[in-house]
């Protein structure tokens, strides 16, 4: 007997794999970008199943709402956005397929045999009751920013500096003289 979250997970999983393949295989590049947006939405569904509402919403907000739109924007600025075969196969598609298969086997082996992964799976099963109480956003904030407890504030700030450098670089490159 399957319970509701399991059924939902399998639906989302099929959607994820299907849209991921569609992104790669679609001949129309705008359709590929669209499938990418659906893919991000489905990934948000996985986060919801894991009781990580905040991450799920941020996933939709950033990846589906902004990143994919910027991808579409860039595609539409190019010459052949309107052509029906804007995303042809490159010559090395078989090489890419081999690398992807190797990567998938590696990940499946690592997740299936690693003791750490099994441990965290058990831990998260215990945490679902605690996360449902609604404290997940507060906990996340403390984990990210707290100056007193153990927190990820330093990596967070370093990441923001990296992004700042990227923004400044983009402005320098794109500036009109």
């Amino acid at each position, binding site marked *: 007997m399957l319970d509701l979250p399991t059924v939902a997970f399998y639906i989302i999983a099929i959607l994820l794999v299907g849209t991921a393949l569609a992104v790669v295989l679609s001949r129309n590049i*705008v*359709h590929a970008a*669209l499938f990418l947006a659906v893919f991000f939405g489905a990934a948000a569904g996985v986060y919801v199943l894991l009781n990580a509402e*905040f991450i799920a919403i*941020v996933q939709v907000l950033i990846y589906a*709402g*902004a990143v994919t739109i910027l991808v*579409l924007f860039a595609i*539409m600025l190019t010459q052949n956005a*309107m052509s029906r075969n804007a995303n042809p196969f490159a010559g090395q598609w078989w090489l890419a397929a081999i690398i992807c298969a190797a990567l998938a086997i590696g990940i499946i082996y690592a997740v299936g045999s690693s003791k750490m992964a099994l441990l965290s799976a058990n831990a998260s099963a215990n945490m679902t009751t605690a996360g449902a109480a609604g404290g997940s956003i507060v906990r996340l904030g403390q984990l990210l920013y707290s100056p007193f407890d153990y927190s990820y504030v330093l990596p967070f700030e370093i990441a923001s500096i990296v992004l700042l450098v990227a923004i400044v670089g983009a402005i320098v490159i794109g500036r009109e003289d």
Partner: protein
Amino acid sequence: MSDFAWGVVAALVKSIIIIVALLTAFAYMTLIERRVLARFQRRVGPNRAGPLGLLQPVADALKMAFKEQFMPGRAFRFTFLLAPALSVFVALTAFAVIPLGDRTTWGTSPIARAWAPFVSDINVGILYTLAISSLAVYGIVLAGWSSGNHYSLLGALRSAAQMVSYEVSIGLSVAGVLMFAGTLNMVDIVHAQVHQGIWYILAQPLGFILYGIAAIAEVNRAPFDLPEAEQELVAGYLTEFSGLRWSLFQMAEYINMITTSSVLATLFLGGWTLGALHGILGAPFIWYGIKVAFFLFIFIWLRATLPRIRYDQLMRFGWQVLLPLSVLNALCTAAVVAFDLQWWVSGLIGLFIILVVSIIYYLRLRAHRQVDKSGIVPKSTGLDQVLPASVRLVNIDPSQPPTSPTHATEPAATTP
């Protein structure tokens, strides 16, 4: 039945009620907008169908239903059909977390709580609304691209750039309210306002104005309706749509307006509350309705008053004015909350910033107006420097016959 099953039934029924209510509100918003716009322009407006023109939406719907639904030969069929449906779907979905009343409106028993007047009460409510509204751009971009028409594509491009730019300001301008409330849950934000005894518009005047401006841009309403600028782009992404598909886009726009007004009312005007008067049965809906109607009127008022701004002005305003001010607002609010100061400190800081920015804008406007009076644009005022180098203004010299290098290469054009 179990509580879970009751919850599912209640959510379904409430969704249907809200969808029907939103569609009715959309139909009558079109009528109200036309009547109010007519008043602004000293006309009467549509008043023939039924008493006071109240049957006008019915007549419009019938007309739209029987119009030919044209599809261009070069259109991408599936996406062309998907785009209007997607717009309406996203607009309706975003409304799910808007609270029209308290959790205990109908009582405190579990069944009464299941029927509380909102579809969903999730912890990340305001973020959910922002995330779903950020998907609204897909409908427009896909519509513009799938039409197979360059004007439509340009409209889609504009809307993509505009919505992504203004989303940043929306998120940051909400941050101040969230710091005061300490929660992302829409119902709890209203409770926090009741608890602290103020509406957050008093503590966050700057945040309110920033959110309002950015939200108007986000729903593509005048003066930010560049994706459908008639003078430049025919009708932008809407060009190739007709009949019911066209009205689906209108529907999405008006529902987005209603959602935005509801978010404004909830975050800044205390949602369904009004002093102690929200305890009376049915009263919360009235207060909520009045607040939303007020914002909807402002939407129409702005459309009647302000001319559409130019594209480079739009981008400049979004990135160089709205975004820095939003960051400043978030910073000041964070300081007030961190040092545990009174709410009016934040309010005064916000008013002060608004005042300074208004004075700067007034002085710049006056400098431009003096130039206009003389009729000559001297180089020294830098009026032409406002334009980026990519924008070229046409120089019209009445003493010379109009010639241009492109015409000179064509023999037929040079000899009139």
